């Protein structure tokens, strides 16, 4: 708009039809935009088709039993990913609970006038920087900081409450508990950022109305702000869950890579993504097919979760705007 205004000033005319060049540019840009959009869809379809195609022989051979067997034995040619599905869900859900509590608390803290605006921005930036730390750095930090730090507590829990299934083994090193802690920190920025957006989207008059009704600040937050933003917060949790499911490198380093189903937080476990990352380089042909099958399962899992998150977010943002 502004540039055409300028042009109008120079030429001394108020309106004119778009020039052929502008029309062409418009058409090219529109074509490019459609093309790139279509390419994105095609890329996704291509990935699904290629991975699905490679996985197909294994899917036919293994059937659905693949999802229910906890064995990964290239020696005997027996494969199943029950232990990895278990480890993926167990670690992601626990990490999400931790990240959800902290993430939502941070979002409230940063949006509900607890801090002066500038300080809140600094905080927000710092939390978003957590998302910029490379996964492998988180893995190293997990090995050299988190594991030694939680080991005494973990072993005390085992000694005192060993009858409780999550504490049923002692902790030596890599295992589910350090993986959950690191995963929670990695998911935290996603949850915190989207929850903040959801809380910030609430018109100020809603809060004023709540105060006008005589609520305390605490009541306003818990009974008005959180329920109003609940859709966005829920979406942040779903997207965080999607991120946790697919997280690879850090988990491959600290979850222990053991093919077992155990309630114990301190026992080594495995996840789908970690299995793929650590097994692929040495896999033979048959094993590669089974890994592709596992990749399809992981892809389906994360795709569904992410789509759910986006849908929920769209649905709720439409509501809050009205």
């Amino acid at each position, binding site marked *: 708009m502004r540039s055409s205004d300028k042009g109008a000033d120079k030429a001394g005319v108020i309106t004119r039809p778009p020039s052929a060049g502008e029309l062409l540019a418009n058409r090219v840009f529109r074509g490019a935009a459609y093309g790139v959009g279509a390419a994105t869809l095609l890329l996704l379809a291509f990935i699904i088709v290629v991975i699905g195609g490679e996985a197909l022989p294994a899917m036919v051979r293994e059937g659905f039993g693949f999802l229910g067997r906890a*064995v*990964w*034995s*290239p*020696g*005997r040619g027996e494969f199943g990913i029950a232990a990895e599905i278990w480890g993926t869900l167990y670690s992601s859900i626990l990490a999400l609970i931790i990240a959800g509590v902290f993430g939502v608390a941070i979002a409230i803290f940063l949006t509900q006038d607890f801090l002066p605006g500038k300080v809140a921005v600094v905080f927000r930036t710092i939390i978003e920087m957590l998302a910029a730390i490379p996964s492998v750095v988180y893995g190293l930090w997990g*090995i*050299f900081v988190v*594991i030694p730090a939680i*080991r005494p507590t973990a*072993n005390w829990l085992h*000694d005192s409450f060993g009858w409780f299934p999550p504490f049923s*083994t*002692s*902790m*030596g*090193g*890599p295992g589910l508990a350090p993986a959950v802690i690191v995963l929670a920190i990695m998911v935290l920025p996603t949850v915190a950022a989207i929850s903040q957006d959801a809380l910030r989207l609430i018109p100020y008059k809603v809060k004023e109305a709540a105060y006008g009704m005589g609520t305390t600040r605490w009541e306003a937050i818990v009974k008005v702000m959180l329920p109003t933003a609940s859709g966005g917060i829920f979406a942040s949790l779903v997207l965080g869950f999607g991120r946790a499911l697919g997280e690879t490198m850090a988990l491959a380093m600290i979850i*222990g*890579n*053991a*093919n*077992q189903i*155990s309630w114990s937080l*301190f*026992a*080594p476990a495995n996840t789908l993504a970690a299995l793929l990352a*650590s*097994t692929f*380089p*040495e896999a*033979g042909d048959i094993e590669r097919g089974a890994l592709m099958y596992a990749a399809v399962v992981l892809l389906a899992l994360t795709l569904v979760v992410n789509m759910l998150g986006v849908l929920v977010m769209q649905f709720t943002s439409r509501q809050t705007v009205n």
Partner: protein
Amino acid sequence: MRTPLVLAALALALSAVAAPAQVMVQGAGATFPANLYRAWIDRFNPDHPDIVVSYDSVGSSEGIRRFSAGLVDFGGTEQPMTDEAIAALGHRVLHVPTTAGMVVVAYNVPGVSGALRLSREALARIFAGEITAWNDPAIQAANPDLALPDRTIALVTRRDGSGTTYIFSTFLNSASPAWSTAGFRPGTLVDFPRAMLAPGNEGVSARLAITEYAIGYVEYSFARALGLPAALIENREGDFVAPTEATGRAALAGAASLLPEDGRLIVADAPTGYPIIGYTWALVNPDREAGEGTAALRRFLEWSLTEGQPMADTLGYLSLPEPAAERARDILAALD
């Protein structure tokens, strides 16, 4: 971005002009002898500017695969190839023994170091997943003086097809019926129950170092490099033997100094000295095209069997006893 590329290209061009033509000798396979092979290459390459030897430590199974596919000049393995596998290749295969070594049972138990004694049965049952706590009576019985903790044993084993696993599982199979009755068989890939899987001897020793209450098996030099204590293992005569150069050499002298003509000999369970030992082989194709590459390969292996041998002992391997070294040179003579 572009400058380094140009510089690299320039350097490449210059080196191609300056240096005489170099022959590449590529090996891949077992991680068991990797520390020794690396030391050999570091010594051999500078002394022989016309030859560049390299070795990828990727595990014995992968070594056999790459050798069989003709991707490398020599493969490294501790599990000899079977006659059927060789027949399927359509050419002869030489098993040149390059060194021998011990597989040690390394552990990381805070407060316990150096003197853990493991009976044959206890070891087999630990790795069959039947003994799960460090203070199990079967372990405590052989260690009356040690305060073993009430902690879960964390097994650390190999993810990749491994000659080290082959030597170790062959020993377990011979050591106690508890192993085979639990349904396990010797091989390069064994599904140890609830074990943490790590790639290569490097991966297993590194995992042991960061995991308390862990136990695993690695070639001796890997445990030594990270300062991991190694258990005393009960041999067939009932002695608890620590892995040292002397005990390994005694085992080798007793069980395996006489190699058969084709070099393939499995020392499952040495009766005297430290029992878990084995040879490692360089797989070589004698029917390959004669030429510079073959001559370079032969020079490297000959060097390793003569000048290179003393380096084995300093690194924690067992240099070939003289009759075995002679046999190895005889086998290598078929490559020309």
